[in-house]
């Protein structure tokens, strides 16, 4: 892109047009403001705009147009803030938070909660333990309750039910919404319902007024019933929130939590053979493409990381990997949380196949390839050297962890 300053007649037109949705974003930066001592400060250099020939123009008639500041290509549009000062009632949501972040199911659920809350109610999200989510505001959370404490670590459904009961006593929400998912929400919601002795609506996919519709039996029938207080909602139960921003005010429990002696003890995750996990549902995929020259090293690295192996179409066509390992439009559409692409340049068919992945790591020689544009972390360099270093680093990390435990 050249540095020649060009006029943008459309931007000028938007800056003139107060009714245009982008009007606020197109306004030039503030030129005078009140200083800390009450003196008006002015930015004399910011006055005026650069004309079409690169000469600064100052229009003192007050009809100055066109921002003086060079605008970036994408204007960050600030969504309107939805505030609930004194909530008339609460809609409580317990998101799954797989990997510490809101999943798409959680976002759908928050969208449903937003519908139920209307303008008077507040959506209260209850989150257990640490989280890594930074987008609660745009997901539609008005109040956030984080229940911390090591008693919620690991698999602790009974303790979590105790926590939810305490929240229920304090906020007395109009509805409880949980995702009817296998990653925790379905189980927690049913345990909570059994402990409250309330009948929940399960696998709900539609709510119309005071009636809800959920799948029944093996999916052959629908069950329509009056809307209960506890709702376990299926995926895509509602559109996620997209047009407003929310406050995410932190709230706290006023009472200390009742501790119950856990009857189920969590002894931790068990190592499973990563090759036995179906590719479509593997959590961590280590995928190789045309850039991999040393396939023995590739397999060794995958084993060291404990990842399921994948491959691009080129690697499969060349016979380095089996056909059932192919990722992409004509292979498997994967849903991994973490996808490591080694020597894959990122054909559009491959990028479609990894569309649902959360975090993509690329190791590649070519800094301009499409995979780098998609990746969250890219390392430019020779794959063999990086894989050797990665094996060494993982072993060092595991040994260090063992020494800490001993």
């Amino acid at each position, binding site marked *: 892109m050249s540095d020649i300053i060009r006029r943008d007649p459309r931007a000028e037109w938007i800056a003139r047009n107060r009714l245009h949705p982008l009007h606020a974003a197109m306004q030039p930066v503030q030129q005078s403001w009140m200083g800390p001592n009450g003196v008006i400060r002015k930015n004399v250099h910011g006055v005026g705009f650069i004309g079409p020939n690169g000469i600064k123009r100052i229009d003192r008639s007050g009809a100055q147009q066109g921002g003086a500041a060079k605008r970036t290509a994408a204007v960050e549009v600030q969504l309107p803030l939805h505030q609930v000062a004194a909530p008339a009632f609460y809609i409580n949501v317990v998101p799954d938070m797989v990997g510490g972040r809101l999943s798409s199911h959680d976002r759908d659920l928050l969208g449903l909660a937003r519908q139920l809350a209307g303008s008077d109610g507040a959506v209260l999200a209850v989150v257990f333990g640490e989280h890594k989510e930074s987008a609660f505001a745009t997901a539609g959370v008005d109040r956030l309750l984080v229940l911390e404490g090591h008693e919620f670590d690991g698999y602790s459904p009974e303790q979590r039910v105790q926590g939810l009961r305490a929240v229920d006593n304090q906020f007395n929400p109009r509805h409880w919404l949980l995702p009817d998912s296998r990653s925790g929400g379905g189980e927690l919601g049913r345990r909570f319902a059994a402990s409250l002795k309330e*009948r929940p609506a399960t696998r709900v996919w539609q709510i119309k007024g005071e009636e809800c519709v959920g799948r029944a*039996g*093996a999916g052959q029938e629908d069950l329509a019933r009056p809307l209960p207080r506890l709702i376990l909602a299926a995926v895509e139960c509602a559109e996620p929130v997209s047009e407003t921003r929310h406050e995410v005010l932190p709230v706290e429990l006023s009472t200390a939590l009742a501790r119950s002696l856990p009857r189920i003890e969590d002894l931790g995750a068990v190592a499973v053979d990563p090759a036995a996990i179906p590719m479509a549902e593997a959590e961590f995929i280590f995928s190789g493409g045309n850039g991999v020259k040393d396939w023995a090293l590739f397999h060794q690295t995958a084993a060291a990381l404990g990842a399921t192996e994948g491959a691009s179409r080129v690697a499969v066509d060349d016979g380095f990997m089996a056909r059932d390992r192919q990722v992409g439009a004509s292979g498997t559409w994967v849903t991994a949380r*973490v996808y490591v692409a080694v020597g894959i340049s990122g054909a559009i068919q491959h990028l479609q196949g990894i569309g649902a992945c959360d975090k993509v790591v690329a190791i590649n020689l070519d800094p301009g390839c499409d995979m780098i544009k*998609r990746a*969250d972390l890219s390392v430019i360099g020779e794959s063999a050297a*990086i894989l050797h270093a990665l094996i060494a680093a*993982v072993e060092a990390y595991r040994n260090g962890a063992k020494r800490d435990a001993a």
Partner: protein
Amino acid sequence: MTTNVISLVSIGAHPTSGRPRRAEQDARAVELGLQMAGAKLQVLHAGNIHEPTLRSYLGMGLPQLHVLEQPAGSDALPVLSEYLREAGAQVVLTGSQAETGEGSGMLPFLLAEQLGWPLIVGLAQVESIDGGVAHVLQALPRGQRRRLKVRLPFLATVDNAAPKPRQSAYGPAQRGELAAHEVEIEQDELFTGAVLQPAKPRPKRLKVIKAKSGADRMKAATAKASGGGGQVLKGLTPEAGAEAILKLLIEEGVVR
């Protein structure tokens, strides 16, 4: 000493034809029970004793199947909890949800609450039962497993991660005995307010593009998927690059 195991079974429905069949997950519960207790396994059903499909459970090699006789639409929870309390079971296995009726999957949770027993969800394998303590493997999404320690007696639901059920043979199915038990009948109040209707296909979610300008719409229609703010590490030593990758993998919790 073998453990006293009871499997709860129900009548399933074929997903395409809707004909009655042995329920998929309940058959897995029976299979797991047979692996744990062999011929001593008790199998329990609450419902109609004259349903011919019940015999397909007997065909898995069971000498006897206990039936708490109930008409359709009655509440199975009180009779089951009363029976289980008196049967002296140490492990109760169920499928995770019924294939007919409401199928809310609440029954094992309510039973566990009434009996005051711990409940394991998604049991994949029982590793050992020793001195009143069981070590079991729980199936998690994405093919993962978790080891849990639980005191007897406990309830467990099985889902599709449990071992595949053995085939049902015709001869044993006909020879097996259906033992009827008389129980009090209690009506389930669900269907006073709820209606069962044929399932409507769910509408496919549309991709809504909320672009304000034509340029944005054009971009949304033509642009390739891109993460945008990805971090690019260039000119680093392989060790530093590997360190950065490993840090991300540990943060995401995939390398343990």
